[in-house]
């Protein structure tokens, strides 16, 4: 599975079927069974999230996308494989997830609240099966406000359909939010463009990027900028 992958699906816009809206294309959804089986109270929270999506989506702050969202977010990620682990390196935010495949178990303490969860995987034939637990409740599942609680438990199944096509399934369980487990299925394609590479994207630096580097290359500092520095020897 080593290589650079990306989905062409609209999963990050909405996991559920939708006819399209100003900020999302139409999509048939990626959920087995069509929709997310929210508990009534959770459905109300999802609606609140949806209404606030243009400001409240953690993606807008470049926060770590979480699992499974990072996988179907429309920006490439790179898989690096060793026998003991699989490194999933996301271009978005340069966040890095490790899937341990060395037989180690989830940590004994279960309140770590990882943004990406704790991932322990094993191979079943040529399918990588990953158990992911111990989540923060601060990540969203898509741009439509779909969400989960700390109790999220994800089971992933990664399977190569051919050398350049990867089938990714994830089953989500969360008894505080969903009435039953539900499964998404997205296809990932290998980037085969000449010299394609991840480009560092620490997008959380954008709010303060403007202040650096200092001095600006087009504004040589001979004038003694910035404004009134304190304590500078003449």
């Amino acid at each position: 599975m080593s290589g650079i992958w990306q989905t062409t699906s609209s999963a990050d816009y909405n996991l559920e079927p939708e006819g399209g809206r100003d900020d999302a294309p139409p999509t048939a959804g990626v959920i087995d069974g069509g929709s997310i089986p929210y508990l009534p109270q959770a459905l109300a929270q999802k609606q609140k999230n949806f209404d606030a999506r243009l400001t409240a989506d953690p993606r807008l702050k470049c926060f770590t996308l979480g699992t499974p969202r990072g996988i179907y977010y429309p920006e490439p990620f790179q898989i690096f494989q060793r026998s003991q682990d699989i490194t999933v390196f996301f271009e978005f935010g340069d966040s890095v997830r490790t899937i341990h495949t060395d037989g180690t178990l989830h940590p004994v303490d279960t309140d770590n609240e990882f943004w990406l969860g704790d991932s322990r995987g094993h191979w079943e034939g040529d399918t990588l099966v990953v158990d992911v637990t111990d989540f923060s409740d601060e990540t969203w599942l898509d741009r439509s406000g779909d969400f989960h609680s700390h109790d999220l438990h994800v089971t992933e199944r990664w399977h190569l359909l051919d050398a350049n096509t990867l089938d990714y399934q994830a089953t989500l369980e969360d008894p505080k939010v969903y009435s039953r487990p539900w499964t998404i299925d997205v296809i990932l394609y290998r980037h085969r463009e000449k010299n394609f590479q991840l480009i560092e994207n620490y997008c959380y630096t954008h709010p303060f990027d403007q202040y650096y580097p200092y001095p600006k290359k087009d504004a040589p500092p001979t004038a003694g900028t910035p404004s009134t520095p304190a304590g500078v020897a003449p």
Partner: protein
Amino acid sequence: MRRTVSVRNSSLLPLVLVLCAVAPLAAQSPPAGQPPLMGQRFQKTVPHIESGPWKGPRLSDGQPDIQGDWSNTIANHNNFTDPQGVIPGDPQARRRSPGPREERAPSRVSDPSDGQVPFLPWARKVQEQLLANSFDPVEPEFVEPLARCAPAGVPKSFYWHGYEIRQFPGYIVFLFNSGSRIIQLSDSPHLPKNIKLWNGDSRGHWEGNTLVVDVSNLNSKARFGRTQEFASENVHVVERYIFDNDRKSYNYVATFTDPTVFTRSWTTTIPARRYTVADRPDEWHYEVKPANAPGKPPIPDHFERVCVENDEGFGRVATSAQTTSGTPTTAPQPTAQH
């Protein structure tokens, strides 16, 4: 040195756990023959490691196997050219004198021989200005970007906490405390010049025991220390990671060329040592926790590194620096607890 950890933000819990992980993975104290912890962190000298053949084990693609956990052996990022000295002008500096200069580790600038960054006069003036204003930053540019969770960049990543190196066919991946870096082992062209990045764009190859990396496309927003040394977007860096055949140490030797900021090319040398399960996790150089692996030999788990998600900001430290009469009570090291 750390910000107060907010218990309101439950995502900090793993960090607290890491902070509390004082027990060594395999033993309660360093194995016999190892120097005490402080001695490992603050060595006074830089070992000489010669570039030459690699005699150690290799990976399947032929690369020397240098994977694992590493950290610098001299001091943290406080002072770039006097690593064990105080930060000039720091109101929080300890009253105790650090002693004569010759009793401290040498400058990280190994060439020129005076140990100073050969700034052009205007650039020296700016560095001094940035330094003088760093303790009570009244303008946004006086806050070092690392304090806002930005990547530590090149070269500071190598003396800002420990880090992990993973190797794969055709690649070397660095997982720093603040930021990550992919080094392609290929001669494919660098990214277009107008793309500027915190860690730049890296192409590497092995020459015996030495990993040689050409770094371009640096945005030069990261600074080299709390002493505020810097380069410009025109900088070009050639790194040489010279690994000792004992597999326990290496020197990071990087040459910086930027005629718009420096009078000449200059070189920094940063010694590093390997950390293993025999070492005690210390919240700084070796941030691991024993994996849950019943019946197996000790395996270190590296917890996820997040910063901006929990950062109510250095942001906040900077603000308090602006709105209170004193200087910040904590050094801006937002990822110390990550």
